[in-house]
């Protein structure tokens, strides 16, 4: 490369860095929606005044009233308090999946990139093999072996989400590792773990966070689907996915409120996670 080309390349690289720290309007809306949903998950169950599991068969499918702002379900339970208390069960699962798979995937990818050679090849192969296996199927398999409930499903989904993160982190870490500053640190005699954790990781953290946000949406859908088909959260515990499932009966009786409200919350949360994650991924890729 000629000196001129190097300078031009360097200029281009610095200029392309997006100066604005601000998200787009859509990004902001998505972030606010996720923040509100997170607050619901933390404080929702505390705000519940009516017992979400209190059955009132006399008022099945009752319309909204003073004590029941969103009406009642097929068993006369208060929809509003069920949605509120369901926020935590619906969101903690996906959060756990994202945290576990991000930690596993990032650790695996950083180790593979640093060690390189056969270890990197082996990790890449295993990751590809697991990646090819649908996560939801693995989760269904896990629940059929270890019994219904969220525990087995969360573990299974964490495992099947790990390759997705590992692939992305591996690519980004490889790019970062090829930069001269890493070679300079190696020449100084800095340990591989120190270089990976103190230099490579902070520089790709934005990309990891962005993909974790995206994964959150997918994990929420997968866990809601499991609860919907009855393998996840069990009655009478309130959960958005499970409420869509139990609400199906209401739809046939032209009383779709329960399924509608629950699916609306799922759609809004997932759409917010996807659009925010998408924007963050694009920003971190433009920055790299």
């Amino acid at each position, binding site marked *: *490369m000629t*000196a001129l080309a*190097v*300078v031009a*390349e*360097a200029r281009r*690289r*610095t200029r392309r*860095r997006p100066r604005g720290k601000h998200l787009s309007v859509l990004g902001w809306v998505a972030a606010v929606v996720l923040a509100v949903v997170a607050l619901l998950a933390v404080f929702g169950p505390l705000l519940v005044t009516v017992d979400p599991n209190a059955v009132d068969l006399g008022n099945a499918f009752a319309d909204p009233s003073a004590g029941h702002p969103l009406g009642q379900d097929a068993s006369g339970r208060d929809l509003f308090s069920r949605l509120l208390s369901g926020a935590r069960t619906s969101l903690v699962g996906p959060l756990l999946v994202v945290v576990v798979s991000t930690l596993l995937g990032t650790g695996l990818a950083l180790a593979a990139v640093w060690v390189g050679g056969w270890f990197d090849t082996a990790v890449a192969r295993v990751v590809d093999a697991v990646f090819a296996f649908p996560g939801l199927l693995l989760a269904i398999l896990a629940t059929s072996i270890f019994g219904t409930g969220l525990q087995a499903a969360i573990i299974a989904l964490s495992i099947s989400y790990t390759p997705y993160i590992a692939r992305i982190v591996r690519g980004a870490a490889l790019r970062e590792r090829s*930069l*001269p*500053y890493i*070679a*300079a*640190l*190696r*020449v*100084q*005699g*800095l*340990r591989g773990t120190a270089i990976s954790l*103190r*230099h490579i990781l*902070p*520089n790709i953290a934005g990309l990891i966070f962005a993909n974790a946000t995206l994964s959150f949406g997918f994990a929420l859908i997968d866990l809601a689907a499991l609860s919907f088909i009855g393998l996840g959260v069990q009655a009478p515990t309130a959960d958005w996915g499970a409420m869509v499932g139990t609400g199906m009966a209401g739809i046939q009786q032209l009383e779709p409120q329960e399924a509608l409200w629950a699916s609306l919350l799922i759609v809004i949360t997932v759409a917010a996670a996807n659009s925010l994650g998408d924007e963050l991924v694009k920003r971190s890729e433009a920055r790299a």
Partner: protein
Amino acid sequence: MSSTAGRRADARTDSERTTAAPGGVPILAVDGLRKTFGRGRKEAVAVDGVSFELAAGGSLGIVGESGSGKTTTARMLIGLEQPTAGRIVLDGADHTRPARRIRDLRARGRLIQIVFQDPYTSLDRRQKIGDCLGEVVRLHFGLSGSALDARVRELGELVGLHDRQLRALPRELSGGQRQRVAIARALAAEPKILILDEAVSALDVSIQAQILNLLADIREQRGVSYVFISHDLAVIRQITDTAIVMRHGRVVEQGQTADVLDSPQDPYTRLLRDSVPHAGWRPGADALVTS
């Protein structure tokens, strides 16, 4: 130097090796260095039988076009690549194979350091300059607290960086300033040899001159030996005592820098010299006719 013909690499003998130290052990000696990439039919020879010596406190230039094996040679010297064959002796000890243990890696780091070409990617973009220098000082000398701060400031002063720049992130600095940081980081290990791999090529000419002056001062003050890799003959002339010319991985000429550049014996060196734009220069008129 015994004769002009003695500068031809293919005709030299040990006694004629003009890059040798004037008495005493050279700080850096390379013998028959070879590096190939790939295997079988895909094998590519990057460096082929390169030998040279660098006197303690001396400055050696490596000249050649892109792909001549200059950078691969540098990467073998600092231990980022393992030579396929040949020997690298640093300060009297064999360092042909890259260090595996972290202790050896650090020991080699205190012997030989490198400054890369591109000042924009040579620094961690999220690390403040002072932290970048501090990290290396702590690594090698275990300093902390005010002793560490003092040493970092001292290194900054050595290359002309002030407190304000030490608190800055790389993107807040100019290319020349960043290259000063890279030089300071390399010097933080207090190496005996410093490799400068096209270290001023990406800089404006006026900044180039500043950095070259800085390097000359540092060499005078610290007695660091330089291996200066460049395709720029003017830069080589200014900063080096001896020079080797590389082409297709081989040394085609070596000797005192002034001799090599003023009365080149090898047609390739002549071509390199005549390719520098000058009065009456016609691009393409100097095409090399090789065998």
